[in-house]
């Protein structure tokens, strides 16, 4: 007969009573705001060599994006355990939605939902940094130019770098081609990962395709404005500024299993065959995971 076990009747009694933590009251919030204002007025905050301003990102940019993330798109994240907590990695994702909101939502997802609250350092096209205000804000949110030098510098510093290899081909594709991955550039992201030995985390984003369904492209307007495309959606430019409100589709963001690159060694970046194979592998993984997520999502605008 096994020995009798003593089971405490009221185990809670041994712990002192702890009142439930109260959320910071309005005084605390206003005081925090005052402190923030004081820091901003006197320049007493830090920025890095890429122009990243964590103070502004945490107190203004991310809070501004949070309602969009939680309420509007109801973003669900899957597979965050595949994103390393404290080392460099290259997150490769599909790009869609006419306006790069998918990049912003992934930034919020990795900061708010990842246990290590990772900073997502996006790589953007040079056009982004040419546009006033947008370019400056992108840098302050942690983005930098998509070039191998910057990607490798960030990866060696142990940052989580995000890249959308489809570029404008992906984000500006017509609605009927939704959820089909476009060509993956020249595989520059793979050679950056190989050179730094950082793992590649494939990431699939479902839901961004429906926010601005692009049914037409006004090429003349695009050429006049110097843009790669000028979207025509069912509501834009028909309804004017109201057409800028994104449709509230349901979003799913899935991070796949990391593809390890360190074992190839940095010299492998000079082997085009390997680079193409890896690029293809990443692309296939993302496409596959997009289909899985689409099956999981019961309806486009559902819960």
């Amino acid at each position, binding site marked *: 007969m096994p020995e009798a076990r003593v089971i405490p009747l009221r185990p809670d009694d041994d712990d002192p009573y702890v009142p439930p933590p109260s959320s910071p009251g309005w005084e605390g919030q206003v005081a925090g705001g005052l402190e923030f204002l004081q820091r901003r007025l006197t320049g007493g905050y830090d920025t890095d060599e890429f*122009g990243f301003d964590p103070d502004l990102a945490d107190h203004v940019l991310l809070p501004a994006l949070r309602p969009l993330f939680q309420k509007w798109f109801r973003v669900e994240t899957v597979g965050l355990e595949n994103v390393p907590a404290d080392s460099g990695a290259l997150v490769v994702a599909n790009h869609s939605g006419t306006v790069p909101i998918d990049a912003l939502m992934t930034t919020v997802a990795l900061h708010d939902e990842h246990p290590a609250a990772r900073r997502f350092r996006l790589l953007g096209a040079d056009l982004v940094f040419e546009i006033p205000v947008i370019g400056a804000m992108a840098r302050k949110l942690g983005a930098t130019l998509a070039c191998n030098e910057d990607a490798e510098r960030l990866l060696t510093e142990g940052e989580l770098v995000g890249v959308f290899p489809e570029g404008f081909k992906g984000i500006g594709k017509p609605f009927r081609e939704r959820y089909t991955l476009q060509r993956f550039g020249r595989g520059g992201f793979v050679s950056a990962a190989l050179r730094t030995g950082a793992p590649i985390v494939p990431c699939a984003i479902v839901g961004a395709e429906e926010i601005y369904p692009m049914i037409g492209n006004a090429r003349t307007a695009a050429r006049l404005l110097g843009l790669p495309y000028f979207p025509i959606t069912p509501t834009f430019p028909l309804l004017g500024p109201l057409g800028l409100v994104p449709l509230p589709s349901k979003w799913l963001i899935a991070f796949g299993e990391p593809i390890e690159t360190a074992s190839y060694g940095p010299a492998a970046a000079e082997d085009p065959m390997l680079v193409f194979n890896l690029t293809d592998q990443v692309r296939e993984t993302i496409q596959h995971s997009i289909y899985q997520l689409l099956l999981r999502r019961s309806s486009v605008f559902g819960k």
Partner: protein
Amino acid sequence: MPPAVVLVTGVSRWLGGALAAELAADPAITRVIGVDTVPPSPEMLRRLGRTEFVRADIRNPLIGKVIAAASVDTVVHMNISSTPAGSGGRVPMKELNVIGTMQLLAACQRAPSVRRFVLKSTSAVYGASSRDPAVFTETMQARQVPSGGFARDSVDIEGYVRSFARRRPDVEVAVLRFTNFIGPRIDSLLTGFLRMPLVPTALGYDARVQLLHEDDALAVLRRATTGSFTGTVNVGGAGTLLLSQAIRRLGRIELPLPSPALGSVGRLSRRFGFVDYSPEQMRFLNFGRVVDTSVLRTDFGYSPRFTTAAALADYARTVPPVVDPGTVHSVTDGLRSLLGRVGGAATAVEQRLRPAPPAPGLRAVRDA
């Protein structure tokens, strides 16, 4: 082997004069010859000590005679003007910069005594555009070759120095690419710019700025002159600031203007002799420029004592702020204490109206 006879061009300016004064204070160096087109100020002349001053234009072949007669072995070329205002317009500026360098190099090539050449260049050779990587290393080149002004001159000058190095392989050549200088005494583009109470900036852009303190600049020049480093090296302080942040730290007021308006403000301010900014400097204001300084720290063997932030703070001692940080602090502190009182009163009222439920005191149950 330390140099015996050093020739420093551009000695009438602060940095050139300070370098000549330091070299003159070193007993290991036999002679220090300073060259400039304008005589140094009396105060500078006192500091120069035993430096021999030669009033000569490096655009003039006379410089060759000076080098040959004194059998100069080390030449430090610092007579490169960054602003048209300082040299009487863009055309004389280009002539001084490019033709002057060519003359000086021609003279050095003829002089067998010369065995070391140090060029004070600038990180402006990397240009500034939205297509550039965030951080430049020495091996990178400008994606868009700067089209005019100081940066273009500097690119040309570096080219001439490289071809000089090919023609005279026995001469050690060191090219120092400095970031923007700052400090209480130096007179640089940025010090004049940031001294204005209202600082015009490009609307919608925020440049990344990397600064180098004048003391570090001097130490690097001295080490390059007396040491044995050859090649190209970026020189800048650790860390960066955003332009808006630097303006706030100095207590200035930022005045964001649309880029076209900024051009006319620049022309106006040049006419009235304040600060002048040319199109290339405007591009710098848009995008900024950061250089990688690992070569400086490892191969060259010098770590700047001042970070970018510390250099700016040291400069800030000499510029009285328009927006006093003390006032900002006292105002926010006042608001905070007011908030504390209001918050305290509000909680008291709330507790009176809705008393919090008492903590459950159930410990006695266990004995029952």
